[in-house]
């Protein structure tokens, strides 16, 4: 008698969300953030990263789908030592929209 384990949750919505991460500007912080999404099988649709101010901090913008696991993903991102804060914006945030002309 074998029992199947549950499948990965199906994407319930195509609604997108923009996450704004304030991070320490350390080498490797991008690996930490991107690796976390990858190993939890959570797709990232878009990534932007630049240093801010005196370059001690960077800002990472992530475009992701709003599926049922997003709250868990954010909780995991917040645990990273180099992540200072995470803000969640709606799909109407314009950071990725303005870049669309570079992706045609």
């Amino acid at each position, binding site marked *: 008698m*074998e*029992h199947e*384990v549950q499948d990965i949750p199906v994407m319930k919505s195509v609604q997108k969300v923009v996450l704004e991460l304030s991070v320490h500007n350390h080498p*490797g912080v991008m690996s930490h953030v991107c690796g976390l999404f990858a190993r939890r099988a959570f797709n990232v649709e878009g990534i932007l990263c630049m240093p801010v101010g005196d370059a001690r901090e960077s800002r990472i913008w992530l475009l992701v789908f709003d599926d049922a696991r997003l709250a868990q993903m954010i909780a995991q991102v917040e645990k990273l030592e180099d992540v200072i804060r995470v803000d969640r914006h709606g799909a109407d945030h314009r950071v990725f929209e303005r870049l669309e002309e570079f992706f045609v």
Partner: protein
Amino acid sequence: MQFNGAQLIVRLLEQQGITQLAGIPGGAALPLYDALSQSTIIHHVLARHEQGAGFIAQGMARVSGRAAVCLASSGPGATNLVTAIADAKLDSIPLVCITAQVPRSMIGTDAFQEVDTYGISIPITKHNWLVRNIEDLLEIIPSAFRIAESGRPGPVWIDVPKDVLTAKIEIEALPPLPAAEPLPAIDAGLVMRAAELINAAKTPVLYLGGGVIASGASAAAVAFAEAAGLPTTMTLMGLGAMPVDHILSLGMLGMHGARYTNYALEESDLLIVMGARFDDRAIGNAAKFCPNAAIIHIDIDPAEHGKIRRPDVAIHGDVGKVLERLSAHVRANPRTAWRDRVNALKAAHPLALPDAEDPRSHYGLVLAVAGLLDDDAVIATDVGQHQMWVAQAYPFRRPRQWLTSGGLGTMGFGMPAAIGAALAEPERTVVCFSGDGSLKMNIQEMDTAVEEGVNIKVVLMNNQSLGLVHQQQDMFYGQRIYASDYRRHTNFQMIAAGFGMRVFDLDQTDDPRNMLSEALSVRGPCLIHCSIDVNQKVYPMVPPGAANTEMIGG
């Protein structure tokens, strides 16, 4: 004071109170070992494989609760540590792992013994560093200990290029130790809601995980259970939090929990979960676990709240601190009806321990060892059938008495972890229950055990197979036993003797209890060998993916 990077690391480790660490040297690590050779404070334990060094450090950390240190060189030294560090991550064990790296100018050139240690260690650590400048060590080493030990403990990894180890720095004094991270503030409103749920519950169960032990809150949890009349179950990692023979103890839940334990949980209307993460081996099919129970989930890691099971009340905080608050608001309650019901379940569906009287049987050997030891002994295991038999049958009565690879389930964990435990607490007897499959995975550490003269007793339950695989092939794969039985008999007695270990073979005596008694009472490392019937099973067993109430056997 002038130091090179290696000397600075050694001084910073000494400042953290480190007196022992385990490792293996190599080309890139030579400066570090040269500096260690000059330390009068730190005793270096030379492992025979880096994975052994990682598990020796884990043994030290698991019995003490403090971060322990392991060292390795670059390349294969680092990759050999990966399993031990991943194991520490899944069981929330504080470790500081330090590896040497090729010089900075050679990073990225596929140099000899170069591997991307930083990249490899990201997913298996709480945090990690590639040290780019010698002055960064002044911040990184203290941070490493702080991060490893604070909040939910875990392993951290520091990769240090060889030229950083040899670079020079002039400093006035070592920086003062940073203050410990404050514990999270506890939401008083949530504590009140939790207390209301507990006071109103008819059939509550207290559910203790490894976090209770990490928090040092075992005694507080037992007192809380007694005051509120709460039947209490423990996860594999939580064993020892409440004495298993306590009147309120339900023992271990889950895949190999007793029938009455899983049945009692099924009837519960409220689970009070402390320092546990709803692991699949503990809860079985998540959707069918305690379907009628409300959940109070107390954990220091907020990402655990709602990860598997949505809690009705989630309290972010240290279990010990939350218990202090909660106890003030929970009414004393004998809960006679519920406890009578639990006792009836226990009487009707007890944990079956067949052949308990025979010291050469699976359960009988565990009980015979227990009968010869007191609660001061430390019990380590490897992974497999023997691990579950020990978890089910050994009378654990204190936190940090029990060392086992819970989350990662790493065969080969047991003996080096036992060595580390014996090094950290040399006054104790440390028993390592092992199987023949597991013991072969780090058998080289017998050499380390003998060299260090540690007081470990390796109890080998030898069924000449990978028993838990054998069991599942027998039960769920049409009895097609494949790649789980060793076709040749291995002479472990001769191997152990070759490493200079004393050997006691229970197969070759008329009085196994007397032989066991002698083996456990003579100080120093030894192997206690006993053949076990390959057809013995771990029962009960919840088939993978099934509900915990769908147990087979037992």
